[in-house]
């Protein structure tokens, strides 16, 4: 097995190196690109705070969402869709209640988004529990449906009043998250994300509910027979909490960064989240570190595309290589008991 792992790891390294070589061969200035990658992510206090950490915020929350699901043996690939419906709900609330003060409307947006995300995930939960539909497929299908829903809304009922741009009106200032300091674009949502990680970490580790979650994930049959655990209920709850966290990420993105809803509001956060969660080895606190790492990568990639013309989609290659390397090292295992169907 050791030899196989070594070969697989080498393959992953070769893939990553090959991509870089290929970019160099097709005329990109690799050293300039790498310079932009570093400058755009950690090169300055501004780049770190207003680039990396802003990108990290949705990744931490969606990564946390994936962590909760995977720990319970729920293969939720739907953080992307749950993020989107959360963003829709938050925007709808902000646009409907323009006169409310910040302390009311911002929590309402977050709560509404969490409920929307949880409800969206609940569809996949019911499909799995009642109809035995593999959640990998159902959550991905729901991602597509959510993306088309947003596309419809920003060109139809929710479009801004001039009907020119496919986006909503900008939300009022009261519905925008305050910044942490005047010199940065970093908003309070980052702290919310950190807080969520601490709460989930504490819950999973120290409460009976967290114990049930881990037990169901590790071995549903044993949980049912030896632990007298209502597996169906725990599973459904994991779906809902996972979806709620992703939905919350959507609210924070609207309220803290974009201030409006538009198509492609998520550049694939829900998929990157899988790499974030796996690299953190499904540890809620670890997600903070891996979320920031991938946030830096994405912020750097944006700079790389701007300054050196290297396609930012290359980040997906790096993310895939990270996941495959973890798989090769035997470090990426979702909770053991996912029943095969």
């Amino acid at each position, binding site marked *: 097995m050791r030899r196989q792992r070594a070969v697989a790891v080498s393959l992953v390294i070769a893939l990553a190196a090959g991509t870089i070589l290929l970019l160099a061969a*097709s005329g990109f200035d690799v050293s300039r690109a790498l310079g932009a990658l570093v400058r755009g992510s950690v090169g300055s206090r501004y780049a770190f705070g207003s680039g990396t950490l802003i990108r990290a915020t949705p990744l931490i929350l969606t990564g946390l969402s994936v962590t909760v699901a995977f720990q319970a043996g729920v*293969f939720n690939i739907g953080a992307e869709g749950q993020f989107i419906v959360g963003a829709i709900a938050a925007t709808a609330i902000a646009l409907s209640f323009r006169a409310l003060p910040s302390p009311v409307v911002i929590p309402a947006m977050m709560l509404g988004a969490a409920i929307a995300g949880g409800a969206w995930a609940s569809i996949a939960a019911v499909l799995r529990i009642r109809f035995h539909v593999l959640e990998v497929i159902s959550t991905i299908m729901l991602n597509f449906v959510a993306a088309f829903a947003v596309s419809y809304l920003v060109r139809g009922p929710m479009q801004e009043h001039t009907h020119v741009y496919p986006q909503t009106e900008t939300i009022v200032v009261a519905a925008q998250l305050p910044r942490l300091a005047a010199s940065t674009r970093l908003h309070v949502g980052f702290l919310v994300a950190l807080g969520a990680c601490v709460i989930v970490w504490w819950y999973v580790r120290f409460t009976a509910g967290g114990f049930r979650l881990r037990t169901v994930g590790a071995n549903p049959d044993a949980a049912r027979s030896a632990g007298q655990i209502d597996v169906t209920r725990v599973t459904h709850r994991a779906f809902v909490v996972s979806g709620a966290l992703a939905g919350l990420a959507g609210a924070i993105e609207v309220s803290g960064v974009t201030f409006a809803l538009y198509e492609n509001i998520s550049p694939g956060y829900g998929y990157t989240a899988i790499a974030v969660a796996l690299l953190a080895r499904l540890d809620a606190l670890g997600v903070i570190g891996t979320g920031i790492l991938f946030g830096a990568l994405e912020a750097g990639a944006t700079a790389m595309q701007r300054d050196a013309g290297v396609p930012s989609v290359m*980040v997906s290659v790096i993310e895939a290589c990270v996941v495959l390397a973890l798989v090769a090292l035997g470090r990426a295992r979702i909770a053991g008991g996912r029943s095969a169907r």
Partner: protein
Amino acid sequence: MSTTSAFLEATLRTATPLALAALGEVVVERAGIINIGLEGIILSGAFGALVGASHAGPWGGYAIAIGAGVIAALVFAIFAVWLRADQIISGTAVTLLAVGLTGTLYRALYGAAGAALTIPTTGPVALPGLSRLPVVGSAFFDQPLVTYVAYVMTAAVWWWMRGTHSGLALRAVGERPAAAEAAGVRIASMQLGALVFGGMAGGLAGACLVLAQAGTFAENMSAGRGFIAIAIVVLGRWQPLGVALASLVFGAASALQFLLQALGLALPYQLFLALPYVLTLAALAGVAGRVRAPANLARVDDA
């Protein structure tokens, strides 16, 4: 063109790449492997078709597409078969890898503006006699060659799985690997072979999108077809004929928009775009609980 022929035409157009990919996935799943990387395989095939066709014409496109599909499948096989790693994580990573690689290479090789890139498509070939049949003739028998490949593949996979010794061995691997091993079947080789076939079929599905339909490549153009194909395998009850039928039903459902448009209903177009995904969910809910998957599907516990 009459509404009926337009409807049938659209049905076949949607069904063909799905049937190709799903027929490959049937073989893979009957060997006990679920390949979520199928989405990435189709995308790799589509990109391979672009590269091949722009250098060596449409037939070169098909060849490179099949090769690209096999390579993507082999990457998955290294993790899923050789390392016996979690198939769903490995498959998801392969899809992510394909999205990143094809996107990066596309922009590196063809520039960011590559939209204007068009490559020749392979036109329809009318089968003499059959294509003259009333109603269904032109829709089923005046198609690009790749559609006929799907017909032949359906029959061939059906016959192979049911009527040959190696087909039986494949099914045994998916149901009772221990028994298969005791009978002298080499499980890993069987699964590898199945994945190579799945890679060829998925690559061909990608080629079909580029060379027989769109005439160009777009990033992420597989648009979830790999996942839909996996759902179709369930709907078709892991049987080649069932899968072909399910693909047609799915194609027909997606083609409903032609009928609805003909009726003059002004519905938002996103509704039609979302329809295939909603239908997949609804169909799975109706079927998934009542069919039995290969017993060893997606299991990685030590045999």
